[in-house]
């Protein structure tokens, strides 16, 4: 396991380094002079010059990059341009809400996909399998921002069961916070749950056709036990890989969902950042997401190896 970590860590760090360079380049790739763009149309030459010197735009690109990276690593993200406040504070304000949302969605993904996948693969009655399939197809065919709006319409506007949007601290009012969390989390989780359920179902079906299932049947193991204890463990490793990719989609989807449900997280922040050309904010959030994603991929590899002994012993 440790050797695997040592093998995968360098490539993960390499990707992170390359990604950070790309993110750094964002500011340098904007058409026109970044300092002028950043200062805005109303700024005087003094302001432009100030920005230029602060960004070190007159230095070589690599020096600029290294300085930027150094600042990032020491936690100095600088002030935001147009949103106001320090970037690190803005991120600190949003990150809790986003982590809460994606973690809740991740939990829902697993809780939904596991039974759906098993049911879809093993249902004795064709109608049950077909129903599972129809559900996953429908979830995948409707754009998530539409699903979100429909959920709001149904549960908030029509039934009045849950709030339409907003956020409440989990510490101050846990029950209220959960009410606010439920709709956005479900909306975020549904597409990924459908994808995972399909992979899991396919994997279980493939495992059920293997010779070792025939062996288990021949020694008299019950069907239910074969599905859960013999076939599922074989389908899990590749499902974990898919789940790892889906975590990326959850974070990306959070941008949409936060907008729909007025959820004050990083998604809202970065969307504002892009629309208001607040580059330090955009860069910081993008890099944070990429770093998180690379870490998740690494974790996925380790879990895969833990689940599949053939990898573990290599």
């Amino acid at each position: 396991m440790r050797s695997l970590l040592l093998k995968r860590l360098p490539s993960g760090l390499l990707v992170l380094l390359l990604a950070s360079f790309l993110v750094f380049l964002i500011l340098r790739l904007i058409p026109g002079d970044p300092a002028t763009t950043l200062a805005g149309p109303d700024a005087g030459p003094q302001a432009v010059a100030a920005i230029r010197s602060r960004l070190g735009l007159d230095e070589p690109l690599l020096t600029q990059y290294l300085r930027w990276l150094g600042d990032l690593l020491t936690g100095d993200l600088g002030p935001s341009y147009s949103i106001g406040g320090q970037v690190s504070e803005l991120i600190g304000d949003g990150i809790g809400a986003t982590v809460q949302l994606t973690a809740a969605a991740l939990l829902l993904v697993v809780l939904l996909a596991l039974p759906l996948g098993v049911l879809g693969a093993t249902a004795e009655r064709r109608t049950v399998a077909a129903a599972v399939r129809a559900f996953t197809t429908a979830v995948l065919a409707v754009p998530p921002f539409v699903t979100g709006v429909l959920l709001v319409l149904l549960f908030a506007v029509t039934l009045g069961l849950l709030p339409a949007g907003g956020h409440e601290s989990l510490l101050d009012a846990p029950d209220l916070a959960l009410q606010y969390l439920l709709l956005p989390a479900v909306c975020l989780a549904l597409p990924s749950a459908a994808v995972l359920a399909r992979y899991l179902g396919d994997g279980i079906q493939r495992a059920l056709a293997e010779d070792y299932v025939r062996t288990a049947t021949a020694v008299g193991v019950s069907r239910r036990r074969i599905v859960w204890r013999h076939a599922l463990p074989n389908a899990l490793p590749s499902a974990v890989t898919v789940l790892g990719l889906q975590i990326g989609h959850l974070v990306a989807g959070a941008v949409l969902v936060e907008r729909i449900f007025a959820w004050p997280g990083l998604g809202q922040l970065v969307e504002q950042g892009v629309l208001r050309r607040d580059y330090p904010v955009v860069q910081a959030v993008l890099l944070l997401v990429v770093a998180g994603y690379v870490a998740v991929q690494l974790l996925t590899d380790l879990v895969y190896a833990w689940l599949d002994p053939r990898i573990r012993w290599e």
Partner: protein
Amino acid sequence: MTASPPRRTVLRVTDLTVTFDGATDGTSAVDGVGFELAAGDTLGLVGESGSGKSTTALALLHMLPAGGRITAGTVELAGQDLATLPESALRAVRGRRIAMVFQDPMSSLNPVLTIGRQLDEALRAHGTRPDKRERAARAVELLDLVGIPDAADRLRDHPHQFSGGQRQHVMIALALANDAEVLVADEPTTALDPTVQRQILRLLTRINRETGTALVVISHDLGVIAQTCRRLLVMRDGRVVESGGTADVLAEPRHPYTKQLLAAVPRLEAPSEAAANSVPGPEPLLTVTGLRKTYGSRRRAVTALDGVDLVLHPGETLGLVGESGSGKSTLARALVQAHAPSGGGIRFRGEEFGHGGERAARREVQLVFQDPYSSLNPRMTVGRIIAEPLIAHRLGDRPARARRVAELLEQVGLDPDSADRYPRAFSGGQRQRIGIARALAPEPSVLICDEPVSALDVSVQAQVLDLLARLQRELGLALLFIAHDLAVVRQVSHRIAVMHRGRIVETGPADRVVTAPEHPYTAELLAAVPRLDARPAALSTRSTA
């Protein structure tokens, strides 16, 4: 056997018929098969692929693949008809009353569960052992019984940590877990080396003798049946064509198919027929000296070839025998330059590889593969497959190539019109002919045959061997014939080389190597060959306890 009392019948199969959905011609995969099995009895089911022998075995426990149904007949186990039993009741029979061992030990064990877990699953399946520690103790006992060393320590290992032969031992332990009355072994040794095969067959025989478990062995190999079973059924196209005591059937086959089958089985006792084909030339054509090949990183290097010396003369057949992992295939691939050796040299027509020899060899040394399925590109027509080497070596224009393809197809006994069809339209034997035609295309002088007949039924095997002999006669080819079946190798070879752990341990005239082996390993290999005249150990009336 005069003293043995009349034994109780445990399994009576009557008129068993299995059909598959969508069988267009209305034929049954198993058609009216019947037999009786007494307690402690041994019965062999022998037949070629498609004879329905494996389907019969699966039908006993209602474990037919999708689309298969028992359409007639009964499977009576102690008076109870399994054919009409519901799934839930069948589960109580599987493993508990009738247990099965399957062919491929690589895929028949669950790769992500430990051996201990899998044995535990089998032991708990019938609810007879509620105590977990008791089950663990029994698991160790079972592994001990089948001869896995350090059984207690190996419970936590996964299947991939066992060798192929050991996995089959574990499979047998799984089958024995609940003291079933009947043990059905479906091709239990087909994927295994002869020495491992001998261990497994001895184990099955010992279990039969010591525990009184009735044994049904299914095999395409008459030798395997002869070694393990007192009685046998010969199957063809889903029907039993002949049955009786093994010794009687083998000595005096009555049905023409049985006779044909027996005639096609290569006998180790039969002398080499190679001299009738050609007389090897004096000058060596291909010389291998001190060839080495190591794989993997420097720290964990695996030595596949450890200084191989070999000489092949024009028109000669050199048989190369050895077990899996001995380096046979690595050697074959080095000769056709599929990889670069780590040391030593190969000379072709006196010229060293790397100094001009390799260029001529690239065209003149060709390879025939073991697996006639995976070695033909499914997306190409047979004509294209055979023409590919011609295109690669820039031999002839398009019409010339088409003529050559037709000629080659005829040469290997196929209809020249087959050129337009795709490999999937052909049977295994026909595909092997296509593979041979491809190898012949650039007019080679050396044909490396890597287990060319081991994936084929015996009757087809005999035809392909005939073809190779004829080609050698007509074209004066030198053959390096790689195989694990010593009887086949003796039949076709002028000389035999025995390979063990990356080295050639013995080389000599074919008949001499078989009749008077000089190296102990050769003797061990020879002893492991299942012979048709061998009396099943279970039959022996010796009453040693």
